[in-house]
């Protein structure tokens, strides 16, 4: 069973010597020179990984990482320090270091902590994968390996791995709030190499989420492996992608990476508080086609980006970002929500206790529209259909964003035809979203495979989207061709 919040609080007190009195004492040191707010983020993380190659277990790994990150806030400025050593002396020293940001020297009242709860556990699990016998996990990897090799005779190599973690976090704040959470995370990966007449092509696939072994009841290792193998073999017949600006149809699911880059980062409140995002000062304005509604939702069941509470101790939220093309709200952390005088949105996240929190996405998706997905393809004379991706990036100030397509096809005369080689697409956020001319009724969330990086911090996220038609995005292929077009 996963831990309840009370279990986590009890774990810190009994196993690590961090009880309410100890936490209150560290908070007192943190506020020793004044400061408007202080917070302690305790983290205890056990993680493991198994990798399988050449049809055998290649390596096994386990790690334990624990510590506390201490933040003292003075206005918009913060002092931050952490320590892996949870002894009272070490924590007091770290608190004093973080306290250097404050110079008020004001008397601060002693903090009286009260344990808070949250509405529902979005990822309670009956059997954490971290307590599953390793032999059972090895069997899953072996099944994936065999399935990929059986898929096609050209599959020359299969590399499979499984990574899982269980994180116990305890967040203690100077406003008296104390909140705990148990956060499981599982990921299964398969990489396949197809070798045919000396030509090599590879592909990766995987999935997971905040769940235990029941993940594999719905996603068999065979199905994940066959998907990686299928993509690798498909690449053997891929042609050069075209160069230029063309209509693009994005398949439901992983194409949500476009939203993550085109609007997601630009709507994180720290950039908007500073006025450095191309969406700054645009609340209430039209930033997309009226077909576009975008939500960031940390409350999805067991999704990779979900949290019960954010890493500042605020309850998880479901936040409407863009409604019918109009910019509705930014994603907030504590400092930004104070700045904008709005409620925190539950988007304060961090990589670990070694990092200060900032506004981050959780699971970001576009709501379903009314179009028949097949119809969106039929509307394109010449363009690109995008199915699978390796990643993306955005410049939040000028709005340019890219995403790399690893499974794509040409659309010719309303039909999907030949697969194309890996290609990068580039667009500008508000421009591309204004060119959304069709939204399917088939919203799909990605399987849990995405990790988002910002300012050197990685956090797990989810993305989702229905099938979407964009009338023009620049496609970075090598095949020169006169401009494409779209029929009425």
């Amino acid at each position: 069973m996963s831990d309840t919040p009370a279990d986590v609080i009890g774990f810190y007190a009994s196993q690590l010597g961090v009880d309410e009195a100890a936490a209150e004492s560290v908070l007192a040191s943190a506020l020793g020179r004044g400061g408007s707010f202080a917070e302690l983020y305790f983290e205890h993380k056990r993680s493991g990984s198994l990798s399988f190659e050449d049809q055998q277990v290649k390596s096994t790994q386990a790690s334990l990482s624990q510590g506390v990150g201490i933040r003292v806030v003075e206005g918009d400025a913060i002092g931050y320090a952490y320590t892996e050593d949870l002894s009272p002396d070490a924590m007091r020293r770290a608190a004093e270091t973080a306290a250097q940001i404050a110079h008020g020297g004001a008397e601060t009242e002693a903090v009286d902590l009260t344990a808070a709860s949250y509405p529902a556990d979005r990822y309670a699990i009956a059997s954490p994968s971290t307590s599953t016998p390793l032999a059972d996990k090895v069997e899953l990897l072996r099944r994936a390996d065999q399935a990929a090799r059986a898929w096609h005779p050209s599959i020359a190599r299969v590399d499979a791995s499984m990574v899982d973690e269980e994180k116990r976090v305890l967040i203690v704040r100077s406003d008296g709030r104390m909140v705990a959470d148990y956060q499981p995370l599982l990921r299964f990966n398969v990489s396949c190499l197809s070798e045919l007449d000396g030509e090599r092509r590879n592909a990766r696939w995987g999935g997971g989420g905040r769940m235990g072994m029941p993940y594999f009841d719905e996603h068999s290792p065979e199905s994940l492996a066959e998907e990686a193998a299928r993509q690798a073999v498909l690449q053997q017949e891929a042609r050069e992608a075209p160069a230029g600006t063309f209509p693009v149809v994005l398949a439901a699911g992983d194409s949500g990476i476009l939203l993550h880059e085109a609007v997601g980062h630009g709507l994180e409140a720290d950039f908007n508080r500073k006025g450095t995002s191309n969406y700054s000062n645009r609340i209430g304005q039209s930033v997309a086609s009226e077909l576009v509604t975008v939500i960031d939702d940390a409350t999805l069941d067991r999704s990779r980006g979900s949290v019960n509470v954010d890493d500042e101790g605020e309850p998880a939220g479901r936040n409407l970002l863009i409604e019918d093309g109009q910019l509705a709200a930014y994603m907030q952390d504590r400092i930004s929500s104070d700045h904008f005088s709005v409620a925190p949105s539950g988007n304060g996240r961090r990589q670990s206790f070694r990092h200060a929190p900032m506004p981050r996405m959780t699971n970001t998706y576009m709501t379903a529209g009314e179009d028949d997905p097949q119809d969106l393809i039929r509307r394109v004379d010449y363009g690109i259909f995008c199915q699978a991706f390796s990643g993306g990036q955005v410049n939040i100030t000028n709005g340019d964003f890219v995403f790399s397509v690893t499974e794509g096809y040409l659309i010719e005369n309303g039909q999907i035809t030949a697969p194309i080689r890996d290609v990068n697409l580039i667009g500008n956020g508000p421009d591309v979203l204004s060119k959304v001319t069709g939204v399917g009724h088939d919203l799909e969330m990605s399987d849990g495979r995405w990790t988002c990086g910002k300012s050197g911090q990685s956090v797990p996220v989810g993305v989702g989207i229905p099938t979407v038609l964009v009338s023009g995005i620049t496609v970075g292929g090598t095949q020169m061709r006169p401009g494409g077009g779209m029929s009425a």
Partner: protein
Amino acid sequence: METSILTTEPLEIAARILERAEAAGADQADAIAVSSTNASTTVRLQKLEKVSESTSRSVGLRVILGGRQATVSTSEVSDAALDEAVQTAMELARISEPDPYAGLADPTTQARSTPPLSLFDEQIPEVDGDHRLSQAMSCEQSALDADGRIVNSGGATFSTSVGNFALVDSNGFAGTYADTSASMWVEVMAEEADGQMRNAGWSTSERALHRLDDAAEVGREAAARALRQLGAAKASTCEVPVVWEPRMAAGLAGIVSGAASGEALYRRATFLAEREEQEIASPLLTIVDDGTLSGRLGSRPFDGEGVVTRRNALIESGVFRGFLFDSYNARRLDAVSTGSAWRSVGGLPQIGSGNLSIEPGQIAPEQIVADVEDGLYLTTLMGFGVNYTTGDFSRGAAGIWIRNGELAEPVQEINVSGNLLEMFQRIDAVGSDAQWFGASSAPTLRMSRMTVSGA
């Protein structure tokens, strides 16, 4: 509760866990321990935004038992935690499968002494918060003062780091070294008449304080880069010569080193497979990996397995000279370790480069641009569009259009693409202006033709 033994001696921690692994019956084992003190100060619009300072340490262990290997790591270094980590490692190793190539580095390849590489600057541990603050402030100030159109800032950060690395193995190797680094980074926004913003960042990073670029110079460079992008628009789709500014060319060297990984070769996931000693690039191109350069960020006396670091030519006058290896992949492919193992506390050694340099040529960078009638001067690349298996390259870009040999208007929201093997062959000019960016150095390069996708 067990009280941790806090120590600043990674060598002592590594030895403590290794001793336990040997006592527990590991056939072979190695342990690494790292500690570091990192401090940074960030200002934005001339106000203090963030101060952070922490000391961190952790230890990692690899055990090999009948050819079966496992790794564990922990940030808790009490005796009880180390005992538990060793026990976990032994249990994990038992469920692994025997790998005939698993093992430690050949002792004859390991470092016997620590050569003087000037990795440690005595000044850096003495740097205090006031110094970090004043450097960050003057860096940002000079960017803000550069021009009235610099209207906003993403902030300036000055940071310092002092690290200690120790490695011990059951063959008797014990090595340790300390290093330092300092870096400064700034990002500013320029605004044009219609309210659109263009941003740019610039940075400097060195092992020694006195080698950092001047704070004001870093600020001015960021400002100049933001200003010259004002008014940037999409270019038309075409095939033209592309001039890579030194910072972009340095990234190209990183791609070559990734493709030259002996692990990628074993996995057959590199376009350089089966191309050793072949002419894969223009004779103008030479790329060298060297972990022994004095005072450089990619230098170290021995690698993550204790093997002596060295100079490895990757491409010499267009000829691919060979792959980088750790000892595991070297054994798998009947090669020798090139001293290229990197080791973090969690996990097995991974192959990586030391300092990467594209050797400068004879031509002044201005001449490289002057010889282009119509083309792209590349200053920004975005995204992850490099397929190491096929060599297909397709990435987002921004830069300045070259017209009649002169830098003309800025461009953005374009893609540049090609196949790396073709791109290397098409290098037709290498500049005399090599510059260092952290652990890589490169001059201006020109490719005679790439596909630019735009409007």
